[in-house]
């Protein structure tokens, strides 16, 4: 019998709850299978590699603490992105907003080193939030006023932010005590966040992230602004029809997501580095990895707490296998990329029903 297999793709009317939960999990597993092939090609036993990643990230107190350290910025940025993505405003520039947040906080810390910690640290968070929000304001206004695609404009703003940081740490802010390194001077003790025991976990930022995740959830589901965000995201035309202000909603979600990304930057300089460094030193792409965090959480800010820890663990585990198995740095970027592709692709299976059909040749 001659014939061929055909795929039939049909739109699902209702998405069952279990499927909504299952797809990200399955997507993640499938991504791991694909990456296993890559490990194999690099001459590494994938089982061993995954074991090392898992043990590196979650297998020791040190690993767990480092995973938490990386999860903090991912959580902050990720929860902000869920708000923007819910309104179908695709803020891709969180990396830049994070850097600007870090820069603004550094400016305050360097300008007023003698302020007491109770005033200086909150001040740094506040100005960091404002800096991140300001950075997001540019693509927000361009989108709302001139319909410029926010994906491009917010992404381009990342490079401007990155060069701004470079300029500052190589130029006017270069530390006198840093012997030619592109760092600013070290912050005064009152501009440094307290840490948990001997780890690098700057717990005030962690608490802030968890609290904000809960607030973001309440914002989306319990407030009238959240209602506007959800309506705008699902059906912009209906939002206009219902008399909602599109400009206001776009500004709101962009400023919030940008501001929260700025907070993540403050946490990094005040909690980890205690100075501003070159851009890659501040953030190994947290702003981009957080996109995966938000998507893996299916745009639920509470789930972001979990997915941020997962992706944080992946970053730490990735470091572990680089050292232990001699894999190139790029491995972990490929890892992230593959996961994002599968998570985005997994959406296809929740929204559509896919059937195989055998068709006989006429």
């Amino acid at each position: 019998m001659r014939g061929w297999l055909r795929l039939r793709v049909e739109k699902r009317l209702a998405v069952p709850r279990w499927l909504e939960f299952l797809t990200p999990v399955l997507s993640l597993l499938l991504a791991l299978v694909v990456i296993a092939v890559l490990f194999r090609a690099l001459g590494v036993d994938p089982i061993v590699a995954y074991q090392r990643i898992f043990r590196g990230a979650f297998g020791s107190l040190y690993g767990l603490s480092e995973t938490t350290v990386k999860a903090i910025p991912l959580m902050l940025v990720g929860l902000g992105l869920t708000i923007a993505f819910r309104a179908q405003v695709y803020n891709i520039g969180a990396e830049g907003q994070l850097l600007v947040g870090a820069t603004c906080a550094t400016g305050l810390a360097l300008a007023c080193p003698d302020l007491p910690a109770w005033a200086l640290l909150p001040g740094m968070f506040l100005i960091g939030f404002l800096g991140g929000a300001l950075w997001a304001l540019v693509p927000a206004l361009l989108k709302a006023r001139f319909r410029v695609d926010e994906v491009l404009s917010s992404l381009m703003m990342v490079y401007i932010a990155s060069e701004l940081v470079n300029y500052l740490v190589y130029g006017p802010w270069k530390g006198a005590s840093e012997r030619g390194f592109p760092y600013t001077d070290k912050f005064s003790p009152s501009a440094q966040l307290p840490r948990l025991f001997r780890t690098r976990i700057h717990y005030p930022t962690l608490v802030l992230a968890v609290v904000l995740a809960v607030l973001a959830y309440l914002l989306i589901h319990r407030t009238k602004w959240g209602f506007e965000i959800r309506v705008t995201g699902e059906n912009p035309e209906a939002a206009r029809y219902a008399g909602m202000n599109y400009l206001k909603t776009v500004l709101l979600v962009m400023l919030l997501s940008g501001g929260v990304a700025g907070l993540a930057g403050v946490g990094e300089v005040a909690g980890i580095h205690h100075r501003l460094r070159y851009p890659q030193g501040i953030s190994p792409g947290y702003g981009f990895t957080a996109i995966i965090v938000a998507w893996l959480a299916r745009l639920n800010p509470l789930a972001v707490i979990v997915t941020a820890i997962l992706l944080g663990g992946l970053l730490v585990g990735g470091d572990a296998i680089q050292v232990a198995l001699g894999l190139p740095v790029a491995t972990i970027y490929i890892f992230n990329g593959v996961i994002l592709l599968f998570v985005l692709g997994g959406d296809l299976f929740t929204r559509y029903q896919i059937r195989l059909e055998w068709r006989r040749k006429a």
Partner: protein
Amino acid sequence: MLNEPAMDIAVAMHSIVKRFPGALANDHISFEARVGEIHALLGENGAGKTTLMNILYGIYHPDEGEIYVKGRRVTIRSPRDAISLGIGMVHQHCRLVPTHTVAENVVLGLPGDFLFPDRAARRRLEEFSKKYGLSVDPDARIWQLSAGEQQRVEIIKALYRGAEILILDEPTSMLTPSEIDELMGVIRRMAAEGHTVIFITHKLDEVFAMSDRVTVLRQGRVVATQGTADTDKPGLARLMVGREVVFRLEKKPAQAGQAVLRVKGLHVLNDRALPAVQNVSFTVSAGEILGIAGVAGNGQRELVEALVGLRPSTQGSAFVKGQDVTNQPPRALIEQGVCYVPGERLVGLVPGLSVAENLILKDYCHAPFSQGAFLNHAAISAHADRLIAQYSVTTPSQDTPVKLLSGGNIQRVILARETSHAPILLIAAHPTSGLDVGATEHIRQLLLAQRDQGTAVLLVSEDLEEVLQLSERIAVMFEGRIMGIMSASQADLGTIGMMMAGAQETSVSEAA
């Protein structure tokens, strides 16, 4: 045995049935087009014309029925199958790549030279231009072309793929009058060359100007197939809009009060910045229904959107209860008590949100539904329970996403939201289109109940029966203008049908 039709039948569709959720789009439709004929498919919007042709072109699959092409039984699963059978379709809206050239668009997707695929096309393009008068510059980019030229490219594209049967979906809707004349010339030459042309339309003038035969569809069924020469405009108009009254509505005489909506000399542009509404004036009073009849695409949508603040007007003014509301934003009009049931249901709701949430789509920012910044879920839920019962919305629960409801229930959700707190002015566009008999009747009763409560109702509908039954006065719109306003008691189907089709407004009595 094969059912073998006569040789001169290019395409035959037998007893085609197509169901959509909540609607029967094609109800045992049989249709034939002969080789070399120009066949008009006439009917109002929603009559099932486009669905039928989409089935022939392989976009939809019929639930029942058979298709024969040149006497052979065929199964058309995709446009690719249709093209290989010699069927081509030109959609109402152009489906070309704007940044590519004409020649590139014509050969797009065809096997051939990998590099510079458009070279091969040039010779044939010249041939088409000579043979059918389809002249276009092969190097022009699509975005540079007018709507008429883009349509020509679509026709060329179909011919290039060997189309012998060409389907044109409302080919004149985007064209200027002179472009329409050119198109008619092209169609006649194609028919003379032995092509079969099927064109979908709802304009009577075009049927008489172009077609050899005409098939009239109404509510998913074939009403008649006739030689164009054997019929006349009033006859076709009557067939198209139907004669028999389906419902008997208990209707009290209207108690018209003072003027609520006053529109003066309004001008509105469409999406392509062409005039869509021209110098339109009318008044709607409290407790009356003014019906606007007309075939879709004659400016009704733009008029309504301008009245609810979704589209700017360029000239003229609108007043609600004496207050100037010209070009006010939607929120201001909502606060004034203007409610709007949009023609496209998707505009009026958010499919993924629950019934309860859709019921507060406009009132979410007022007490009791929000207190300060927070939504009051208890109040929202109580409100939903009340409206679901009052408007008999059939839904598994108030938390069900509205996209899972049937068309009739979706419309009830919208109407419940728009009418539950006695609006001053209710604007309803095509409120019953696509609904089954029961839902239609329910919704018409709701509109009458609104009228009896003293709401001024502006009803826009293509369903002439509906307009005649519900309205106190009827305005007919054609090409952006109001052809006349008459009282429902004086109106007859024939006259209105003629006015809807753009025929002269002779012997139309004006009732202000």
